[in-house]
Protein backbone atom coordinates (compact mmCIF):
# COMPACT_ATOMS: atom_id res chain seq x y z
CA UNK A 1 0.00 0.00 0.00
CA UNK A 2 1.26 3.43 -0.86
CA UNK A 3 3.65 1.77 -3.22
CA UNK A 4 3.40 3.13 -6.76
CA UNK A 5 4.78 0.09 -8.57
CA UNK A 6 2.44 -2.17 -6.70
CA UNK A 7 -0.52 0.04 -7.54
CA UNK A 8 0.40 0.02 -11.22
CA UNK A 9 0.53 -3.76 -11.36
CA UNK A 10 -2.92 -4.02 -9.83
CA UNK A 11 -5.24 -5.30 -12.54
CA UNK A 12 -8.90 -6.15 -12.83
CA UNK A 13 -10.85 -4.16 -10.28
CA UNK A 14 -10.65 -0.44 -10.88
CA UNK A 15 -12.82 0.12 -7.85
CA UNK A 16 -10.30 -1.58 -5.63
CA UNK A 17 -7.54 0.50 -7.16
CA UNK A 18 -9.33 3.76 -6.40
CA UNK A 19 -10.23 2.78 -2.82
CA UNK A 20 -6.68 1.91 -1.98
CA UNK A 21 -5.45 5.24 -3.24
CA UNK A 22 -8.03 7.24 -1.24
CA UNK A 23 -7.15 5.38 1.93
CA UNK A 24 -3.50 6.06 1.29
CA UNK A 25 -4.14 9.72 0.62
CA UNK A 26 -6.24 10.05 3.76
CA UNK A 27 -3.68 8.20 5.82
CA UNK A 28 -0.91 10.38 4.45
CA UNK A 29 -2.86 13.52 5.30
CA UNK A 30 -3.86 12.33 8.75
CA UNK A 31 -0.43 11.29 9.84
CA UNK A 32 0.92 14.83 9.53
CA UNK A 33 -2.01 16.59 11.21
CA UNK A 34 -2.43 14.90 14.57
CA UNK A 35 -4.33 17.01 17.07
CA UNK A 36 -3.29 15.93 20.50
CA UNK A 37 -5.31 15.71 23.68
CA UNK A 38 -2.71 15.55 26.48
CA UNK A 39 -4.10 13.47 29.38
CA UNK A 40 -1.14 14.18 31.65
CA UNK A 41 -1.42 12.76 35.15
CA UNK A 42 2.04 12.17 36.57
CA UNK A 43 5.78 12.71 36.41
CA UNK A 44 6.00 11.63 32.73
CA UNK A 45 4.46 15.03 32.08
CA UNK A 46 7.91 16.56 32.57
CA UNK A 47 9.23 14.51 29.70
CA UNK A 48 6.17 15.40 27.68
CA UNK A 49 6.99 19.09 28.20
CA UNK A 50 10.54 18.45 27.01
CA UNK A 51 9.10 16.69 23.99
CA UNK A 52 6.89 19.60 22.99
CA UNK A 53 9.55 22.24 23.66
CA UNK A 54 11.92 23.41 20.88
CA UNK A 55 14.78 21.09 21.74
CA UNK A 56 12.93 17.96 20.69
CA UNK A 57 10.22 19.82 18.81
CA UNK A 58 7.12 17.74 18.27
CA UNK A 59 6.07 20.28 15.66
CA UNK A 60 8.41 18.64 13.15
CA UNK A 61 5.88 15.81 12.96
CA UNK A 62 2.82 18.00 12.64
CA UNK A 63 1.60 16.80 16.01
CA UNK A 64 2.30 19.80 18.19
CA UNK A 65 -1.14 21.40 18.41
CA UNK A 66 -2.85 20.50 21.69
CA UNK A 67 -6.62 20.58 21.81
CA UNK A 68 -8.13 20.58 25.26
CA UNK A 69 -11.47 19.42 23.98
CA UNK A 70 -11.69 15.73 23.09
CA UNK A 71 -14.10 16.60 20.28
CA UNK A 72 -11.39 18.50 18.43
CA UNK A 73 -8.59 16.01 18.87
CA UNK A 74 -7.73 12.68 17.35
CA UNK A 75 -4.65 11.59 19.31
CA UNK A 76 -5.00 10.84 23.02
CA UNK A 77 -1.68 11.07 24.88
CA UNK A 78 -2.03 9.19 28.14
CA UNK A 79 0.99 10.43 30.05
CA UNK A 80 1.44 8.95 33.51
CA UNK A 81 -0.19 6.70 36.06
CA UNK A 82 -3.93 6.16 35.78
CA UNK A 83 -5.67 5.42 39.05
CA UNK A 84 -8.85 3.41 39.27
CA UNK A 85 -10.64 6.61 40.16
CA UNK A 86 -9.55 8.23 36.89
CA UNK A 87 -10.64 5.22 34.85
CA UNK A 88 -14.18 6.44 34.09
CA UNK A 89 -12.84 9.88 33.13
CA UNK A 90 -10.31 8.40 30.72
CA UNK A 91 -12.93 6.18 29.12
CA UNK A 92 -15.34 9.07 28.76
CA UNK A 93 -12.70 11.29 27.16
CA UNK A 94 -11.82 8.50 24.74
CA UNK A 95 -15.46 7.98 23.83
CA UNK A 96 -15.97 11.69 23.21
CA UNK A 97 -13.19 11.85 20.65
CA UNK A 98 -14.15 11.77 16.99
CA UNK A 99 -13.12 8.82 14.87
CA UNK A 100 -10.58 8.13 13.55
CA UNK A 101 -8.75 8.35 16.85
CA UNK A 102 -5.52 6.99 18.21
CA UNK A 103 -4.19 6.40 21.71
CA UNK A 104 -0.59 6.77 22.80
CA UNK A 105 0.50 5.10 26.07
CA UNK A 106 3.40 7.26 27.25
CA UNK A 107 5.62 5.54 29.81
CA UNK A 108 5.55 2.29 31.70
CA UNK A 109 2.70 3.27 34.02
CA UNK A 110 0.28 4.05 31.22
CA UNK A 111 1.41 0.92 29.38
CA UNK A 112 1.29 -1.63 32.19
CA UNK A 113 0.77 0.11 35.51
CA UNK A 114 4.51 0.01 36.10
CA UNK A 115 5.59 -0.94 39.57
CA UNK A 116 2.22 0.08 40.99
CA UNK A 117 0.84 -3.41 41.46
CA UNK A 118 -1.75 -2.33 44.01
CA UNK A 119 -5.33 -1.46 44.89
CA UNK A 120 -5.41 1.93 43.27
CA UNK A 121 -3.70 1.74 39.88
CA UNK A 122 -5.08 0.58 36.55
CA UNK A 123 -2.62 -2.08 35.31
CA UNK A 124 -2.25 -0.50 31.88
CA UNK A 125 -4.76 1.68 30.08
CA UNK A 126 -5.39 -1.09 27.55
CA UNK A 127 -7.60 -2.62 30.23
CA UNK A 128 -9.97 0.30 29.62
CA UNK A 129 -9.39 1.67 26.11
CA UNK A 130 -7.57 0.36 23.03
CA UNK A 131 -3.97 1.49 22.67
CA UNK A 132 -2.07 2.06 19.42
CA UNK A 133 1.48 2.63 20.59
CA UNK A 134 3.17 1.74 23.86
CA UNK A 135 6.36 3.54 24.86
CA UNK A 136 8.00 1.93 27.88
CA UNK A 137 10.32 3.94 30.09
CA UNK A 138 10.15 5.59 33.46
CA UNK A 139 9.94 8.13 32.00
CA UNK A 140 10.81 7.40 28.35
CA UNK A 141 13.43 9.56 26.70
CA UNK A 142 11.97 12.04 24.22
CA UNK A 143 13.79 10.14 21.45
CA UNK A 144 11.86 7.01 22.34
CA UNK A 145 8.63 8.96 22.25
CA UNK A 146 9.51 10.43 18.87
CA UNK A 147 10.17 6.92 17.68
CA UNK A 148 6.76 5.93 18.95
CA UNK A 149 5.23 8.86 17.13
CA UNK A 150 6.91 7.83 13.88
CA UNK A 151 5.64 4.31 14.47
CA UNK A 152 2.16 5.73 14.94
CA UNK A 153 2.45 7.78 11.74
CA UNK A 154 3.49 4.66 9.93
CA UNK A 155 0.50 2.81 11.33
CA UNK A 156 -1.85 5.62 10.32
CA UNK A 157 -0.47 5.65 6.80
CA UNK A 158 -1.03 1.90 6.53
CA UNK A 159 -4.43 1.84 8.28
CA UNK A 160 -2.90 -0.54 10.76
CA UNK A 161 -4.62 -0.82 14.14
CA UNK A 162 -2.66 -3.56 15.86
CA UNK A 163 -0.72 -2.16 18.81
CA UNK A 164 2.99 -1.43 18.47
CA UNK A 165 5.65 -1.20 21.13
CA UNK A 166 8.78 0.96 21.04
CA UNK A 167 11.79 -1.02 22.03
CA UNK A 168 14.36 0.51 24.38
CA UNK A 169 17.58 1.73 22.81
CA UNK A 170 19.74 -0.52 24.93
CA UNK A 171 18.48 -4.02 24.33
CA UNK A 172 18.08 -5.80 27.68
CA UNK A 173 16.89 -9.05 26.12
CA UNK A 174 20.23 -10.59 26.92
CA UNK A 175 19.89 -11.41 30.57
CA UNK A 176 16.16 -10.66 30.55
CA UNK A 177 15.66 -13.51 32.99
CA UNK A 178 17.41 -11.33 35.56
CA UNK A 179 14.86 -8.54 35.28
CA UNK A 180 12.60 -8.34 38.28
CA UNK A 181 9.15 -9.62 37.39
CA UNK A 182 6.33 -7.22 38.08
CA UNK A 183 3.74 -9.82 39.00
CA UNK A 184 4.14 -11.38 42.39
CA UNK A 185 3.08 -14.73 40.99
CA UNK A 186 5.41 -14.63 38.00
CA UNK A 187 8.62 -15.95 39.53
CA UNK A 188 9.85 -17.46 42.74
CA UNK A 189 11.90 -14.65 44.29
CA UNK A 190 14.26 -17.11 46.00
CA UNK A 191 15.24 -18.61 42.66
CA UNK A 192 15.76 -15.12 41.27
CA UNK A 193 18.01 -14.11 44.15
CA UNK A 194 20.08 -17.29 43.98
CA UNK A 195 20.48 -16.86 40.22
CA UNK A 196 21.64 -13.27 40.70
CA UNK A 197 24.14 -14.31 43.37
CA UNK A 198 25.50 -17.07 41.17
CA UNK A 199 25.88 -14.61 38.30
CA UNK A 200 27.62 -12.09 40.54
CA UNK A 201 30.04 -14.71 41.85
CA UNK A 202 30.88 -15.78 38.34
CA UNK A 203 31.48 -12.22 37.10
CA UNK A 204 33.64 -11.39 40.14
CA UNK A 205 35.67 -14.52 39.55
CA UNK A 206 36.15 -13.52 35.91
CA UNK A 207 37.24 -10.01 36.90
CA UNK A 208 39.81 -11.29 39.37
CA UNK A 209 41.08 -13.80 36.84
CA UNK A 210 41.36 -11.07 34.19
CA UNK A 211 43.36 -8.69 36.41
CA UNK A 212 45.95 -11.35 37.13
Amino acid at each position, binding site marked *: MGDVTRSLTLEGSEQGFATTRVDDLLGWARKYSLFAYPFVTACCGMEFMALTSPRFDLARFGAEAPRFSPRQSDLLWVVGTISQ*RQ*GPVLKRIYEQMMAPKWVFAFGTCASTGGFY*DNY*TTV*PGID*KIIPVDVYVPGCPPRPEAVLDGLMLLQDKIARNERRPGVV*KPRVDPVEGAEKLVQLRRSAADPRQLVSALKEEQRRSEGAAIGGSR
Partner: protein
Amino acid sequence: MSHYVLDRLKERFGTAILETHSNFGDDTATIEPTQWKTVCAFLRRDPGLDFDLPVDLCAVDYPNRKPRMEVVMHLYSVSKGHRVRLKARVGDEEMEGAELDSVTSIWPGMNWLERETWDMSGVRFRGHPDLRRILMYPEFEGHPLQKTYPADRTQPLVPYRTEDEAGMPIHKLEPFGPEEGMPFGRAGSIRGEDN
Protein backbone atom coordinates in the same frame (compact mmCIF):
# COMPACT_ATOMS: atom_id res chain seq x y z
CA MET B 1 16.99 18.40 73.63
CA SER B 2 14.84 19.21 76.57
CA HIS B 3 11.81 17.14 77.36
CA TYR B 4 9.72 20.16 78.11
CA VAL B 5 6.65 19.04 76.17
CA LEU B 6 6.68 15.51 77.55
CA ASP B 7 7.26 16.78 81.07
CA ARG B 8 4.33 19.14 80.78
CA LEU B 9 2.13 16.34 79.48
CA LYS B 10 3.12 13.93 82.26
CA GLU B 11 2.66 16.60 84.86
CA ARG B 12 -0.79 17.50 83.59
CA PHE B 13 -2.22 14.07 82.69
CA GLY B 14 -0.25 11.59 84.79
CA THR B 15 -1.40 8.02 84.13
CA ALA B 16 -3.27 8.96 80.94
CA ILE B 17 0.18 9.17 79.34
CA LEU B 18 0.87 5.46 78.84
CA GLU B 19 4.46 5.71 77.71
CA THR B 20 6.91 8.25 76.30
CA HIS B 21 10.24 8.24 74.57
CA SER B 22 12.55 10.74 72.90
CA ASN B 23 14.58 8.77 70.40
CA PHE B 24 16.84 11.16 68.48
CA GLY B 25 15.03 14.08 70.08
CA ASP B 26 11.64 13.09 68.68
CA ASP B 27 9.33 13.51 71.62
CA THR B 28 6.67 10.83 71.50
CA ALA B 29 3.80 10.21 73.88
CA THR B 30 1.38 7.30 73.75
CA ILE B 31 -1.82 8.39 75.38
CA GLU B 32 -5.05 6.89 76.61
CA PRO B 33 -7.51 6.98 73.65
CA THR B 34 -10.29 8.37 75.83
CA GLN B 35 -8.08 11.37 76.62
CA TRP B 36 -7.22 12.06 72.96
CA LYS B 37 -9.22 15.23 72.56
CA THR B 38 -8.43 16.60 76.01
CA VAL B 39 -4.70 16.18 75.44
CA CYS B 40 -4.97 17.81 72.03
CA ALA B 41 -6.91 20.77 73.44
CA PHE B 42 -4.26 21.21 76.13
CA LEU B 43 -1.42 21.11 73.59
CA ARG B 44 -3.19 23.67 71.41
CA ARG B 45 -4.34 26.12 74.10
CA ASP B 46 -1.53 26.10 76.65
CA PRO B 47 0.54 29.25 76.02
CA GLY B 48 3.81 27.51 76.78
CA LEU B 49 3.11 24.68 74.31
CA ASP B 50 1.06 26.44 71.60
CA PHE B 51 0.94 23.61 69.02
CA ASP B 52 -0.74 25.51 66.22
CA LEU B 53 0.24 23.43 63.21
CA PRO B 54 -1.25 19.95 62.72
CA VAL B 55 1.39 18.31 60.54
CA ASP B 56 0.09 14.82 59.94
CA LEU B 57 -2.31 12.15 61.04
CA CYS B 58 -2.27 8.53 60.02
CA ALA B 59 -2.78 5.05 61.43
CA VAL B 60 -0.55 2.01 61.48
CA ASP B 61 -1.97 -1.50 61.51
CA TYR B 62 -0.19 -3.99 63.79
CA PRO B 63 -2.25 -7.13 63.21
CA ASN B 64 -0.60 -9.06 66.05
CA ARG B 65 -1.02 -6.37 68.63
CA LYS B 66 -3.91 -5.68 70.88
CA PRO B 67 -5.27 -3.04 70.32
CA ARG B 68 -4.52 -3.31 66.66
CA MET B 69 -4.47 0.19 65.17
CA GLU B 70 -2.03 2.85 66.27
CA VAL B 71 -3.12 6.34 65.32
CA VAL B 72 -0.16 8.70 64.98
CA MET B 73 -0.39 12.47 65.06
CA HIS B 74 2.45 14.92 64.47
CA LEU B 75 2.22 18.45 65.76
CA TYR B 76 4.44 21.49 65.41
CA SER B 77 4.47 24.84 67.12
CA VAL B 78 5.40 27.66 64.80
CA SER B 79 5.95 30.15 67.62
CA LYS B 80 7.92 27.81 69.93
CA GLY B 81 9.60 25.75 67.26
CA HIS B 82 9.02 22.41 68.96
CA ARG B 83 7.35 19.20 67.83
CA VAL B 84 5.56 16.29 69.43
CA ARG B 85 4.26 12.96 68.21
CA LEU B 86 1.11 11.58 69.79
CA LYS B 87 0.00 7.98 69.55
CA ALA B 88 -3.18 6.23 70.57
CA ARG B 89 -3.91 2.52 70.24
CA VAL B 90 -7.47 1.52 69.38
CA GLY B 91 -9.52 -1.30 67.91
CA ASP B 92 -9.55 -5.09 68.12
CA GLU B 93 -9.09 -7.63 65.29
CA GLU B 94 -12.54 -6.87 63.88
CA MET B 95 -11.87 -3.12 64.09
CA GLU B 96 -14.46 -2.87 66.87
CA GLY B 97 -13.80 0.21 68.93
CA ALA B 98 -11.40 1.71 66.41
CA GLU B 99 -12.66 5.16 67.27
CA LEU B 100 -11.26 8.43 68.50
CA ASP B 101 -12.72 11.84 69.17
CA SER B 102 -12.38 14.18 66.25
CA VAL B 103 -10.08 17.13 66.83
CA THR B 104 -11.38 19.22 63.94
CA SER B 105 -12.79 21.71 66.45
CA ILE B 106 -9.24 22.29 67.73
CA TRP B 107 -7.44 22.30 64.35
CA PRO B 108 -9.77 22.77 61.35
CA GLY B 109 -6.90 21.44 59.22
CA MET B 110 -7.36 18.01 60.77
CA ASN B 111 -10.59 17.60 58.79
CA TRP B 112 -9.05 16.09 55.68
CA LEU B 113 -6.38 14.20 57.61
CA GLU B 114 -9.04 12.44 59.66
CA ARG B 115 -10.95 11.64 56.49
CA GLU B 116 -7.78 10.17 55.02
CA THR B 117 -7.15 8.08 58.12
CA TRP B 118 -10.71 6.78 57.96
CA ASP B 119 -10.43 6.08 54.24
CA MET B 120 -7.07 4.31 54.35
CA SER B 121 -7.19 2.55 57.72
CA GLY B 122 -10.79 2.50 58.87
CA VAL B 123 -10.38 4.43 62.10
CA ARG B 124 -13.55 6.39 62.80
CA PHE B 125 -13.58 9.86 64.34
CA ARG B 126 -16.50 10.74 66.59
CA GLY B 127 -17.91 14.19 65.96
CA HIS B 128 -16.23 14.71 62.58
CA PRO B 129 -18.46 17.01 60.51
CA ASP B 130 -18.15 15.07 57.24
CA LEU B 131 -16.45 11.69 57.59
CA ARG B 132 -16.39 10.54 53.94
CA ARG B 133 -13.71 8.86 51.88
CA ILE B 134 -11.24 11.36 50.49
CA LEU B 135 -8.75 9.43 48.32
CA MET B 136 -10.70 6.35 47.26
CA TYR B 137 -14.06 6.46 45.51
CA PRO B 138 -17.35 5.98 47.38
CA GLU B 139 -17.88 2.55 45.78
CA PHE B 140 -14.65 1.23 47.27
CA GLU B 141 -15.09 -1.51 49.86
CA GLY B 142 -12.73 -1.92 52.78
CA HIS B 143 -9.71 0.09 53.83
CA PRO B 144 -6.60 -0.58 51.76
CA LEU B 145 -3.92 0.09 54.37
CA GLN B 146 -5.30 -2.47 56.78
CA LYS B 147 -3.09 -5.53 56.76
CA THR B 148 -6.17 -7.68 56.20
CA TYR B 149 -6.88 -6.02 52.84
CA PRO B 150 -5.68 -8.49 50.15
CA ALA B 151 -2.60 -7.09 48.43
CA ASP B 152 -3.83 -8.01 44.94
CA ARG B 153 -7.44 -6.94 45.28
CA THR B 154 -8.50 -4.16 42.90
CA GLN B 155 -11.94 -2.67 42.54
CA PRO B 156 -12.15 -1.20 39.03
CA LEU B 157 -14.80 1.42 38.38
CA VAL B 158 -14.76 0.61 34.67
CA PRO B 159 -15.12 -3.06 33.78
CA TYR B 160 -11.94 -4.18 32.09
CA ARG B 161 -12.01 -4.98 28.39
CA THR B 162 -12.11 -8.66 27.62
CA GLU B 163 -9.90 -10.33 25.06
CA ASP B 164 -12.97 -10.89 22.86
CA GLU B 165 -13.76 -7.18 22.87
CA ALA B 166 -10.23 -6.20 22.09
CA GLY B 167 -9.77 -8.90 19.47
CA MET B 168 -6.29 -9.61 20.76
CA PRO B 169 -4.68 -10.89 23.93
CA ILE B 170 -4.69 -8.35 26.75
CA HIS B 171 -2.04 -8.94 29.29
CA LYS B 172 0.46 -6.97 31.24
CA LEU B 173 3.39 -6.38 28.92
CA GLU B 174 6.56 -7.93 30.16
CA PRO B 175 9.22 -5.36 30.72
CA PHE B 176 11.17 -5.25 27.52
CA GLY B 177 10.24 -8.72 26.35
CA PRO B 178 11.75 -10.12 23.16
CA GLU B 179 8.51 -9.74 21.16
CA GLU B 180 8.40 -5.99 21.39
CA GLY B 181 9.63 -5.28 17.90
CA MET B 182 12.66 -3.69 16.34
CA PRO B 183 14.48 -0.71 17.79
CA PHE B 184 13.90 2.40 15.72
CA GLY B 185 12.77 0.45 12.70
CA ARG B 186 9.37 -0.13 11.26
CA ALA B 187 9.60 -3.77 10.23
CA GLY B 188 8.49 -6.08 12.98
CA SER B 189 7.55 -3.25 15.33
CA ILE B 190 3.92 -4.20 15.21
CA ARG B 191 2.83 -7.00 17.44
CA GLY B 192 1.68 -10.13 15.74
CA GLU B 193 3.25 -9.26 12.41
CA ASP B 194 5.64 -11.77 10.90
CA ASN B 195 8.31 -9.79 9.17
